[in-house]
């Protein structure tokens, strides 16, 4: 396993293939490719590329570890060994196995193959996908968010040992924690039971919020816009409200009192579909689509600077795109908070529905 190489500037000649992802973009197709590439996860941390005066192509960023479970067990190496190749040209040999990267997916070549061959639909014919546990860009973003949360809340918790009033970063975090407790957890889950769910609600709120905000920096993270991440977050909420359902919740879901007997199985089916499929689906799609749409609109508006250059000149096009992008970024800061709030709010609402206990004083 090679060591972590840190920040590096790798020098490579400009590829003759015109479709170099992350390179200079001029046309509408290249801009669309660039945006699509940004929205996806990547195996290396790429900040930007430029062409130096001598005509060399330089990529600025650092490589991240690739960890895969191949046919011979665990294999790991640095993503720099792929040399920014994403089309299956570069082949890395480790433990007698050959690996290559095609469209951000790592493939293991068959034993006697030396180069990847493609069929008509551009699927690799002599290579197969492997289980990928790599520290990708998104995983790296999650680690950063985790570290930030740990440092912030650790200092907040330590502050309470000295006195009731927190200092430093705690002054920012305490009102937010109280906001989540008083505006989200208490009214939706109820005074009696909200305490049990506070850790989850706080974690999910700050996790989404911090990652949304990191996504707005020029570092190029798009973590909450990965559908895998939002699916996992929605699954956590699903498991929590399904396992904490009260007796009344299950009675009302599976055998609704006060309804004709013929209708009860139909209602039970509808309720179950709603709780198991529709509610988590709406949670995960909302977060994913909002962040993805936000990122692609901001990048598209920023790309106006290239597209409008012919009509308005360099300064004019840059000015138009700068002010539109500024306007959108301000909205995105609001959306970053709003989506974290909505996810937490709806999670609390669903948990509240499940743990609620009815007083049977009134008849149904």
């Amino acid at each position, binding site marked *: 396993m090679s060591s972590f190489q840190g920040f590096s500037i790798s020098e490579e000649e400009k590829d003759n293939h015109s479709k170099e992802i992350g390179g200079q973009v001029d046309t509408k197709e290249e801009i669309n490719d660039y945006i699509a590439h940004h929205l996806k996860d990547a195996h290396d941390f790429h900040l930007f590329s430029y062409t130096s005066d001598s005509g060399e192509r330089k990529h600025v960023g650092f490589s991240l570890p690739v960890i895969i479970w191949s046919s011979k067990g665990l294999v790991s190496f640095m993503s720099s060994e792929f040399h920014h190749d994403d089309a299956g040209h570069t082949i890395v040999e480790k433990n007698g196995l050959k690996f290559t990267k095609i469209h951000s997916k790592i493939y293991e070549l068959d034993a006697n193959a030396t180069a990847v061959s493609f069929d008509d639909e551009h699927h690799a014919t002599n290579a197969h996908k492997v289980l990928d546990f790599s520290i990708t860009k998104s995983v790296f973003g999650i680690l950063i968010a985790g570290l930030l949360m740990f440092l912030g809340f650790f200092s907040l918790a330590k502050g309470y040992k000295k006195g009731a009033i927190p200092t430093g970063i705690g002054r920012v975090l305490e009102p937010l924690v109280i906001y989540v407790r008083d505006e989200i957890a208490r009214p939706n889950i109820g005074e009696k039971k909200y305490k049990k769910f506070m850790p989850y609600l706080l974690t999910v709120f700050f996790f989404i919020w911090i990652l949304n905000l990191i996504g707005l920096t020029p570092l190029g993270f798009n973590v909450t816009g990965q559908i895998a991440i939002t699916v996992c977050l929605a699954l956590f909420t699903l498991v929590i409200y399904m396992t904490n359902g009260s007796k009344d919740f299950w009675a009302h879901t599976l055998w609704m009192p006060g309804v004709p007997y013929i209708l009860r199985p139909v209602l039970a089916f509808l309720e179950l579909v709603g709780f198991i499929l529709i509610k988590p*689906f*709406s949670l995960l*799609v909302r977060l994913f*689509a*909002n962040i993805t749409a936000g990122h692609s609109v901001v990048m598209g508006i920023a790309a106006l600077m290239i597209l409008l250059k012919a009509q308005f000149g360099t300064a004019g096009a840059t000015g138009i795109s700068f002010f539109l992008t500024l306007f959108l970024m301000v909205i995105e800061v609001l959306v970053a908070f709003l989506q974290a709030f*909505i996810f937490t*709010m709806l999670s609390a609402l669903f948990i509240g529905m499940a743990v609620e206990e009815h007083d049977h004083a009134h008849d149904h």
Partner: protein
Amino acid sequence: MYNLIGAGLIVIGGGIGLGQIGGKAMEGIARQPEAAGKIQTAMIIIGALLEGLAFGALLLGK
């Protein structure tokens, strides 16, 4: 082409829905300014539910 028309229809529907929610919420706040906080929270939740529907439809159409 057809999915673009579909996307347009979704946006029209979502726009009508959001307009209704926002307009009624403002009416409510104007009539009872002391309930502004509660109305706002409810407005955001219903807006989010609507948004979930609209985004779901957009993704299915894509």
